[in-house]
């Protein structure tokens, strides 16, 4: 697999949200605006990259049966570091994303990449994989957030487009499910066109 | 308040437009095509061969197997051949074809018009005579009557129900005989009571036939007080045997059970008449009352028709196939069979010929089920036809079984009432067969 491929596969082919349908909780909860989605995406990408790197470093030495606990410990450690860093340097974002930052630990994407990729590949590849998947995740979250923000508050990245309020439902829980549902359909349609050719 | 059954049911217009036409004899035919499968169960085995001379009432085929019935010639003449011919559905069935010569009856038949009231024969002899005469149920299913009159070991009958409800729209054959032959029917009932050893009998008649109720009551009050005439609400399928038992006795036939499980035996009024003729007059069952009706016809008729008359002949006799009729139904509009092959001939249980125009019968285009529950409301068995239909279409046989698809009596209420024209009964009927096959294939515990 080429290095470039490692990075781009997360966008379409292995898109963690639209294809793998993983990590749904933060996806739905934190995408009330494009910025929030972007923030969550970057936070997750951070964890993905570092956990992938750490795990690919130690994978060879770890006995099979404690594989999962070791991964969890490592991932949790990375997440905690992230928490600390965010508290220190982006307190606002940390507060908005709230509980979903620690929940990155149980985000299936992270563990999933650890299991499926990092444990079997070199450090560099794992890092690239983390970047790629993280990119896909971030992009999807941002798009989702942007759409919700646009429909819900008639603004994008915080900029008001028209005077008025937008459709509130889209910022609230129902809108999260709905937008994701329709985006998924669009994505699948696009993807099938893409692969048919 | 008249009695009625407890669940579901529908109220189609009864259209009994032929009710005032007295029964007339159908003219003799030139050739009779007598089917060997006129009853539920194994076909009878012909005992005549090409060239044999037969008389009216002569035995031409013997019952084969446990559920089967004798068949007698309905005409006199020469056997032309014994061969496979299509029945009304177009499927090949063995027929005895007789070229008619005159109208010579076997001499054991009492052809007088006297009413014989005395029941001389004993229990066993009655059943034997009924079997010999090939009497089958005339309520539709053509189940051999002698078997019904012999409850299986361990089961005891305590009540006989006579089905005079004739809940099918259009048909008036039972109605006419209740008007014209009430006493014979009641004697027939007595005979069956004797055969079953029961002391109670009820005749259920729908309220839309007040004259029949009056006529039957009039006779019953004079000398047949052990037979009660029970007026029933007009509601389809009042005549379904499970519904009739429920309406008259309040008992419910269990799922997968037979009427006898409730101690009841149900017979049609026509069957009672046939039993009377067989036992008292020694006349085998080779003819029956047939209503020929339809809104597109100028004249409505009730005939006494010999078995083996082709539909073509009948149409010819009434002056040809009406122009705007598109469908010919043997039986009523709810349960009758559409005739696919005009060359097929009538059988013992043929009770009516109904002609419908395209407008009356054409099914509308199927639409999405709107879950209106009209079918659920209509189903007299408490089933959920919409669900059965859905399950049938995705082949979920186990769930169909759980949802009691086997209980469906194929009354058609669901399809009748479905506003979306969903072919509910078509799919249900099919899945019934499939599920039955699965159930049969399962090892018995």
């Amino acid at each position, binding site marked *: 697999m080429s290095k470039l491929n490692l990075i781009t596969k997360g966008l379409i082919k292995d898109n963690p949200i639209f294809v793998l349908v993983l990590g749904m909780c933060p996806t739905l909860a934190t995408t009330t605006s494009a910025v929030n989605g972007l923030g969550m995406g970057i936070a997750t990408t951070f964890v993905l990259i570092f956990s992938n790197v750490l795990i690919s470093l130690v994978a060879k030495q*770890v006995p099979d*049966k*404690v594989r999962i*606990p070791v991964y969890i410990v490592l991932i949790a450690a990375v997440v905690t570091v992230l928490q*600390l860093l965010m*508290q220190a340097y982006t*307190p606002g974002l940390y507060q908005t994303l709230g509980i979903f930052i620690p929940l990155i630990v149980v985000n299936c994407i992270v563990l999933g990449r650890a299991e499926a990729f990092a444990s079997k590949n070199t450090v560099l590849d794992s890092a690239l994989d983390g970047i790629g998947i993280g990119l896909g995740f971030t992009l999807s979250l941002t798009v989702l957030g942007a759409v919700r923000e646009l429909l*819900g508050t008639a603004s994008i990245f915080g900029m008001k487009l028209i005077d008025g309020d937008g459709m509130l439902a889209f910022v609230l829980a129902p809108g999260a499910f709905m937008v994701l549902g329709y985006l998924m359909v669009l994505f699948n349609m696009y993807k099938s066109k893409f692969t048919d050719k | 308040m008249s009695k009625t059954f407890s669940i579901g049911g529908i109220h189609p217009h009864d259209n009994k437009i032929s009710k005032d036409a007295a029964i007339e004899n159908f003219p003799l035919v030139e050739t009779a095509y007598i089917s060997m499968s006129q009853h539920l169960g194994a076909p009878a085995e012909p005992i005549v061969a090409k060239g044999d001379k037969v008389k009216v009432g002569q035995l031409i085929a013997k019952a084969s197997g446990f559920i089967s019935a004798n068949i007698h010639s309905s005409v006199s003449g020469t056997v032309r051949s014994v061969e496979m011919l299509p029945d009304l559905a177009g499927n090949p069935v063995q027929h005895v074809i007789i070229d008619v010569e005159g109208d010579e009856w076997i001499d054991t038949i009492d052809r007088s018009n006297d009413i014989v009231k005395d029941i001389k024969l004993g229990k066993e002899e009655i059943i034997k005579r009924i079997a010999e005469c090939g009497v089958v149920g005339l309520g539709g299913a053509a189940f051999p009557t002698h078997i019904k009159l012999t409850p299986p070991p361990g089961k005891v009958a305590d009540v006989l129900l006579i089905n005079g409800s004739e809940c099918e729209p259009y048909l008036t054959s039972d109605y006419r005989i209740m008007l014209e032959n009430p006493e014979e029917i009641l004697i027939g009932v007595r005979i069956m009571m004797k055969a079953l050893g029961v002391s109670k009998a009820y005749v259920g008649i729908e309220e839309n036939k007040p004259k029949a109720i009056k006529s039957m009551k009039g006779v019953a009050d004079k000398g047949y007080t052990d037979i009660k005439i029970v007026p029933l609400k007009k509601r389809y399928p009042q005549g379904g045997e499970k519904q009739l038992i429920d309406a008259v006795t309040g008992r419910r036939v269990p799922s997968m059970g037979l009427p006898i499980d409730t101690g009841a035996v149900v017979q049609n009024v026509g069957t009672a008449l046939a039993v009377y003729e067989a036992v008292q007059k020694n006349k085998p069952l080779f003819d029956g009352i047939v209503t020929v009706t339809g809104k597109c016809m100028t004249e409505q008729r009730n005939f006494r028709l010999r078995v083996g008359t082709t539909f073509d002949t009948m149409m010819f006799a009434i002056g040809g196939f009406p122009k705007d009729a598109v469908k010919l139904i043997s039986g009523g509009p709810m349960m009758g069979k559409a005739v696919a092959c005009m060359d097929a001939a009538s059988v013992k249980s043929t009770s009516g010929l109904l002609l419908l125009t395209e407008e009356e019968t054409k099914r509308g285009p199927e639409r999405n089920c709107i879950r209106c529950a009209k079918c659920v409301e209509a189903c007299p068995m408490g089933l959920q036809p919409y669900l059965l239909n859905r399950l049938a279409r995705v082949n979920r046989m186990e769930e169909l079984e759980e949802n009691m698809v086997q209980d469906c009596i194929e009354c058609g209420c669901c399809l009748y009432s479905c506003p979306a024209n969903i072919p509910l009964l078509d799919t249900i009927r099919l899945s019934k067969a499939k599920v039955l096959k699965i159930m049969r294939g399962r090892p018995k515990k």
Partner: protein
Amino acid sequence: MARESTLKNMVVVLMLICLASSALLGGAYVLTKEPIEAAQLAKINQSIAGVVPPFDNDPNGDSFTKEYNGANYKVYPAVKDGETVGYAVETFSNAGFGGRVSLMVGFSMDGTIINTVVLNHSETPGLGDKMVAGKSNFSLQFNGKNPDEFKLSVKKDGGDVDAITASTISSRAFCGAMTSAYEVFKLCVADKTEKEAVNE
């Protein structure tokens, strides 16, 4: 691929990993400890600065709590040239639509509301969250008003406050928090005058 698992190597490996990561964590904690505290402080200071007149003291260091109606309120005095120029009161109400609403309210010494900053809330985006300055003019209407003359309740309830449309509940909560703040402010002022009286 990976090694055979025995009890011993499992414990050892896990142990090592745990040691390593805890070291990492501990390190990270130590490193970020100060920035985090600084960030928290900055946030408070920023909101204080936003609601009181310019000051030259460390309001956070000088803060004290006041009890009012069974709850403790944090008060940050703003002192300029030794003179108390105002109080920032950290106040809250639990009657918000989404629960608690916390505000920082600044008063000048005569009781005039200088400004308010919403510290924390969980009101519905697009509705109740219009109480945040910048999302609507709701919170601005208090500025420069003195609660003695300006009745701190929504017009529907007979007060002088224009509620956020379709968010009476949030508006009421906001007013409630303001009222508490004002009461606390009055206590502070009373205390201060008392103290000064004693001093003199």
